[in-house]
Every structure is written in C-alpha cells, then in structure tokens.
C-alpha cells in the first residue's frame, strides 16, 4: 500500500513539474516547499516499506532520493535540491549532538582495555590500510589525477577517516531490536562510540592540514595557528553550547525539542561562518551534557522528537545528489574500498580482542559491529565534499557508494553476528521499545541499565 501511495505522489509531482519546464519557475519558493514535502512523504513511505522487508529505513530514504533525483526520474530538480541542502547543516549538528550523548565515560571505563586494543588495531589499522590504498592505487581514483605526492598524502588521511566512519546508532538500534546483552554487545558499543570521537577529532585535524596544503603557500606555523584556534575553539564553544542547552533543559521542562533544534541550527549556520567545526562543536555539547549533567537521556529524546523530518529530508537529499554516472565508473573502487575497510575491521578487531584477552564471542564477532555506516558517515562525507569541492562528483560517488553499500549490507551482518554469538534475547524488554530514529528506524541510547 505504501508503494501505491508513493506512485500517486510521484504522479502528482510529475504533473506539477511538467507545468514549469523552465528552470526559473522551479527556483521559486513554491518549488522548495514542494520538493521538501514530496521528499518527506515519499522517503518516509519507502523507509517504512524497507523496514517491513527487514532493511534499514535510512537505506529507504537514500534510495528514494536516488530514484527521484535529477539523475533518474528528475522529479526533484537540481534547483530544488540546492535549496534543500540547507538541511545538511542542521542534520549534521543534530547527528553529532546525539552521538555525543551516546559517549558515557562512566559506562565505558570497565571495558577500556578491550576498547583500547580493538580501537588501536581495528580502527587505527583500518584507517592506515585505507590511507595506504589511496596512496598506492591513485589510478583507481580519477579525482586524484594531477595531485603531487604531498597533496595525495594530505588527502589520504581525511578521505580514509571519512570512509572508516562507523555508526553507534545502528549498533544501539540493533542491540535493542534483538534484545542483546553480553560482552560482545557492550564491547562493540564502547568501541564504536570511542571510534566516533576519534574519527571526528582526527578528521578535523587532518582535513585542516589538507586544506592548508591545498590552499598553497601557507607555512606550518599558519597551519598550527589555524588548528590551534579551530579545534580548541570548537571544543570550547561546544561545551558552552552544552551548558546553555543543559541550563535551558533544567529550567524549562516541555519545550526542549524546539530549543535544541534552534541551537543546532545556530551551531550549524553561525558556527560554520565563524570558522568552527560543526561536528566538533555539537559533539562536545552532547558529550558535556551526557557526562557532566543528568540530562543526557532528555537531550536524546528531545532531539529524536523533532529531528525526524530533518533526517528524512537530509538523507533523501543526500541520495538525490548522488552522481550515478560517476558511480557507474567507480563501481570497482567502491567495492574494493568497502572490502579493504571490512577486512581491516574484521582482522584488526580480532587481533585486538585477542591481545586484550577478550572472551571468544568478542574475538569472533567484534569486527562485524564496526562495519555499519549511517548518518555520521554521511555527515562527515558531506563536510568532506564541502571542504574539498575540487574533487567534485567522483569523490562524492566513491564516498556515498561505500557508505550506501555498508549501510545496506553491514547491519544485516551484525544482526547475524549477534544471533550467532548467543547474546540475542538476553536483554529484558524494558528498553526495547522501538522508536523512530534517523539511522535504522529504531534507535536509543546507551542507558544506565545497559552499562557494564
């Protein structure tokens, strides 16, 4: 039935689009609202249909965007998409804010030996392998043509970090979905939340260096000065934003969701223009609220309450902006990089778990929990594309291709791993109420009950 509604919506959209074949009319205010409304409805319906098939909702949103975008059906024009990219900043801030609330240091402390080794070898190893692959096979990546060795080196790290990004939300959602609990579930959760912080911090650092290298003519002192302002500045602003949000949540009981949206919008639009890193600012705000106040759960719930339309639009727009013709020529590299990434996580995670003397189930399956990608990966990908526009649609196709592949396949693999490990069904149903979330259609947070 959902698909029938999608067809009706498509027919209405096609009819409306045929009225104004000229690009000028498509750019008027009605076009923006029409595109937003159409994408909201059809992506939501397709996402629900995907959920019924046991697939992630996010994949449904992306597929809707791809199908309705300018490269396939052209129901949503390029001009409409340009206007709708405004959702990117807000969605990125909200995703990072939610991600920050999932990092509860108190809960992670007992697992630190395992997390340290698995993170070091799994995450660190994968990033290095991906960077090495970029350096060794530049011929596979046409957008690197003409780069000097230094430039290629500068590019390899932020690109590797972008490709290596993981998804705590998918991990949390699957844990809830199958009611899993045990050493594997807890370790995976710890690893992905720490990896998230590492990747965001590492990306900010490496992308600043790369931007400076590509900017040309800047000395190391300038690079250090830039980094010295951007990273600590973003963290300080993030903590201040967290304080303001926490104070508001304490004072006002019921209006938190709207305030957080406004704060997210300000972080995205004002923070970016002031030269701060949106991801770091929002992540620091979320971290502060989770670890220094008792409002982490409320923040998470409030973000979830109001952010669904933003996420649905964000992911469908991300799908619609995917350059399929570029992806077609990069299908080989996409599969190759996805395979390298998977191998890195599976082997590195296994070795790290063995060194940390983790239980057998952790050794065998921890790598599968590090494979899924979703919202954060897409956010970093969009930041990458904003920061390095010179690499254009081919870089976008590579990154979105890898993320889409991992988003589609890896949650299924991790779900199987949880079932095979015997941890599925161990958790009581008290916190397995499914909810709407951007990443898989069921999300939550690392609750105290789940803490080791």
């Amino acid at each position, binding site marked *: 039935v959902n698909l029938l*509604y999608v067809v*009706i*919506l498509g027919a*209405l959209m096609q009819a*409306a689009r*045929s*009225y*104004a*074949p*000229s690009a*000028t*009319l*498509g750019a*008027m*205010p*009605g*076009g*923006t*609202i*029409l*595109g*937003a*409304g*159409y994408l*909201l*409805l059809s992506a*939501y*319906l397709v996402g629900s249909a995907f959920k019924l098939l046991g697939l992630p909702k996010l994949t449904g949103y992306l597929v809707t965007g791809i199908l309705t975008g300018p490269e396939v059906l052209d129901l949503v024009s390029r001009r409409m998409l*340009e*206007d*709708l*990219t*405004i*959702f990117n900043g*807000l969605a990125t801030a909200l995703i990072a804010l939610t991600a920050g609330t999932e990092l509860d240091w108190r809960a992670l402390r007992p697992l630190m030996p395992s997390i340290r080794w698995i993170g070091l070898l799994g995450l660190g190893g994968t990033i290095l392998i991906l960077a090495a692959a970029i350096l060794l096979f530049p011929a596979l990546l046409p957008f690197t043509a003409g780069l000097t060795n230094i430039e290629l080196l500068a590019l390899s790290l932020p690109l590797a970090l972008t490709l290596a990004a993981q998804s705590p939300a998918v991990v949390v959602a699957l844990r809830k979905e199958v009611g899993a609990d045990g050493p594997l579930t807890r370790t995976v959760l710890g690893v992905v939340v720490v990896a998230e912080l590492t990747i965001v911090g590492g990306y900010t650092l490496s992308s600043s260096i790369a931007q400076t290298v590509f900017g040309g003519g800047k000395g190391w002192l300038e690079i250090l000065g830039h980094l010295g302002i951007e990273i600590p500045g973003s963290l300080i602003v993030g903590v201040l934003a967290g304080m303001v949000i926490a104070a508001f949540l304490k004072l006002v009981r*019921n*209006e*938190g*969701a*709207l*305030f*957080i*949206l*406004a704060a997210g*919008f*300000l972080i995205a*639009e*004002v923070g970016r*223009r*002031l030269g701060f890193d949106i991801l770091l600012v929002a992540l620091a705000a979320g971290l502060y609220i989770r670890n220094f106040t008792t409002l982490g759960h409320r923040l998470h719930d*409030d973000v*979830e*309450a*109001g*952010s*669904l*339309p*933003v996420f649905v*639009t964000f992911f469908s727009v991300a799908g619609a902006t995917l350059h399929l013709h570029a992806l077609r020529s990069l299908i080989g590299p996409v599969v190759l990089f996805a395979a390298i990434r998977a191998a890195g996580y599976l082997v590195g995670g296994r070795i790290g778990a063995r060194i940390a003397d983790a239980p057998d189930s952790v050794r065998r399956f921890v790598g599968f929990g590090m494979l899924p990608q979703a919202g954060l990966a897409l956010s970093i990908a969009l930041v990458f594309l904003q920061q390095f526009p010179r690499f254009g649609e081919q870089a976008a196709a590579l990154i979105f291709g890898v993320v889409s592949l991992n988003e589609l396949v890896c949650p299924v693999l991790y779900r199987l791993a949880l079932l095979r490990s015997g941890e599925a069904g161990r958790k009581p149903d008290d916190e397995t109420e499914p909810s*709407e979330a951007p990443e898989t259609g069921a999300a939550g947070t690392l609750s105290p009950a789940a803490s080791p």
Partner: protein
Amino acid sequence: VQSAPPFGYNRLLNKVPGSKLNSHRRLTAASSLGAVVLCAAAPENAAAAVSPPDMIRAVTGFVLLLALAYIAGHPRLVQAEHRLALNPLVTSGLVFVFLGTLASERNVGVLTDAPLAAISPVIPLGLGWIGFRTGLRFDHRLIGTPVSQAGIFLATILPIGFSLAGCMIGAWLVNPSAITDPLWVRDCLLIGLAGAMTSLPAIKILIGRWPRDFSRERLESFVKLEHVAGISGLMLMAIFFRPQGDVVGWRLPGNGWLLITLGSGCAMGLLAYALLRTSPKGPPFFIILLGVICMSAGMASFLRLSVLAVCFLSGAVVANMPGTFNEEVCAVLKRLERPVFLVLMLVAGAIWQPLDWHGWVLAGIFLISRICGKWTAMRFSSRFLPEELNAAERRALTLAPIGPFAIAVILSARDLYPGARTSWMLTAAISGAVISELLFQWFLRREEPAPAEVAA
C-alpha cells in the same frame, strides 16, 4: 438562542482542547515544524549576497524572532488576550509587524532584502498551514445552516464591491488610465477581498461576553462561511489572473485551472486522509501532516494557484471524512496556528513600507469602503433576510474588526503575484485593523453588560 455547539466542527474545536493532547506529541509537532521553517528559510541562498558577519546577524536574529513567535503563541498568552477581549491582530500581531519592520532596517540587518528573499518559502508554508487549519474548521453541514448563502453573499460581495469601487476611484484620481489596467483591477480586488474578512477571534470574544445576545451558531457560521467565500474568491482570482508565456508548460482555459485547483486540493486531502488514518502516533504522524501541508502548499504555489484554497480543500476533505485522528490533527494545528501567523506577520512587517503615502491614502478609502459595504450588507440582510440575524448581531458584524485572515489574503497576493502592490495593501489592512479594532472596543463598551456581570 442556542448555546450548545451545533456542528461536528465544534466537536473538533471546542471539545478537544490542546491541553488534552499528549504534550510530547504536541512538542514533536512544534519542533518538526520549527525545523522545517528554519530550513525553509534557506539562508544558504542569501549567502552569496550577504557578508558572513551580516549573515550571522541575520540567522541569529531570525532564530530569536522565531523563538519569540513561539513564546507569543503560548496558550496562556492566548487566553490572556481572550480575557482582555483583545483582537490578536492588533496585539501580538501588530507587535510582530513592527518587529518585522524593525528587523528589515539596514542598521538592524536581520530581514533585509537578501535574507527576506531567502526566507520566501516561509510564506507558502505559513499560508498552507493557515489554509489547512481553516479547512479543518469546515464542516460540510455548515452549508445547510440557518445562515443562508444569500446572507454570506451579501456580507462578502458588497464590501468587496465597495472596496473595489472606492479603490478604483482613488486610482483613477491618481492615474486615469489605471481604471482599464487589469493589474490595478486585480490589486483592488485583492484589497476588497481582504477588507471583507471579519475577525473570528473577535466574534468569539463577543459570544463569550454576551452568550445570551449572540448566537454562537449563527455568528461563527457566518464568519466561517465568509472565510470560505474569501478563499473561493482568491481561488477564482488565481485562476483568472495567471502568468502567461513560454515559462509555463500548460495553457489551459479558466475552467481547466478551476478543475486543477479542486483536483489538487481534493487529491492531497484524500492522500492525507489515507496516510493519517493508518499512521502511528508520534513523529510519523507529524511527518505525514507536515509533508502533506508542504506538498499541497508547494504544489499550489508552484502552479501559481492559491495556496490558501488548495490547502483549505485538503483540510476540508480530512475534516469531513470519518476517523478519530482528526482530533489530533486539530489540536496540533491549533497550538501552532498562532506562531505560524506571527511568523507571517514578521514577514509582512519586513515587506511593509509605512512611509509610502500611497498606502495611507488607500487605507482611508479601504476603511470607509469596508464599513459602508458591511453596513449596506447588513441593511439588505435586515430588509430581505430578517430571520437570519438579530439587530445586535448585525451591528456586531458591521463593526467587527478585520482579522488575521485578511493579512493571509494579502500575503497570498505576494505569493501569487510578486509584483503586486503588497506594501500598500498591508498599510491599508494594518491601519484598517487598528481603527476597526478601536470601533469594536467602543462597541463592546457601549453594549449593555450581561446580566451575569451586573449580578457580579
């Protein structure tokens, strides 16, 4: 005199106060809409035209103004306004108009030209919200109410006719060739249409104050049908004054556009009904509601149809179909109606040019035409349809102030015809609202107090 709510729409409006809605769901709706409004504002588009510091100021200022609109729409403030018998258009509405005007000043730099162009998608979105909400108020049984179609016809057509005549005479005095210019005729018709609309909150104040003298059924039905007539007028205007040329793909006769307007509104309404009926409560429900309103409004604006009319039809279809979800839709829209209206008032304030003398000349003509039109309509009503309204009701309807709906009509003109003389119309409507409110307050104080008040 009947005091019991007579129709289904009253069941929706009066028996389901917003407070009964789960507050989490209500806030989910608020924040969802807030997110879309923030993003619809699309400051990205203005970035090229505005320097980063100015853009930061514009974004921060706009977010603060939105927050202020949300706070001003709090049910307690609305209740306080109601207790003081004040028309929202001249209290919070005027404050936001002035805030908008202030924000558009170059020294303030929040809603200057580039940011204003960037937030233009907010206009169809807000109009769509108001249209959908008005449609939800519409019960098909209203058509068969004691208030006849003839009464409504008189109450809307005569003020429109008087305003049109007055404005055309004014235009002719300024420029004799204006009288044959279709654009002048179009703008004068729009002013007349705005001037014919009566404030529904004012009527509610009246009924609340003297429940024995005024029939809720008759007066509310009258004003609601008047709004329906106004929306129909806008629909017809959008059909007969259309952009032509190669930029549009369809060249249809007026009847064709009429069918398209009715078809798109009903199709979106049926789709909304089908989706909302089976949707789980919470975020999915609001996604669908928001999506339907956005798409209906966007489609109407994109096809150069009246956003208010198309969204009204969608809302009316949803309201008149069976199902219990209507109550949730109504409660959500009711809570957000005021903030949406205030955001539109901000935009109205930003495009308003109070120093333009043309608007003030027009304001005088507008007000006199409106009162003459209403007075004549009520005289005809007492002469030919004496059983419809009693003397006090006729007096109240003659002096009832202009409501927020008039501003929505004028902003529709901005959406439909970017070249229309919107600023003049706004001057006329705003000053008309203030003066008609003063007249209405005088009327309230002049009428005999209710027996209950005397006893107190």
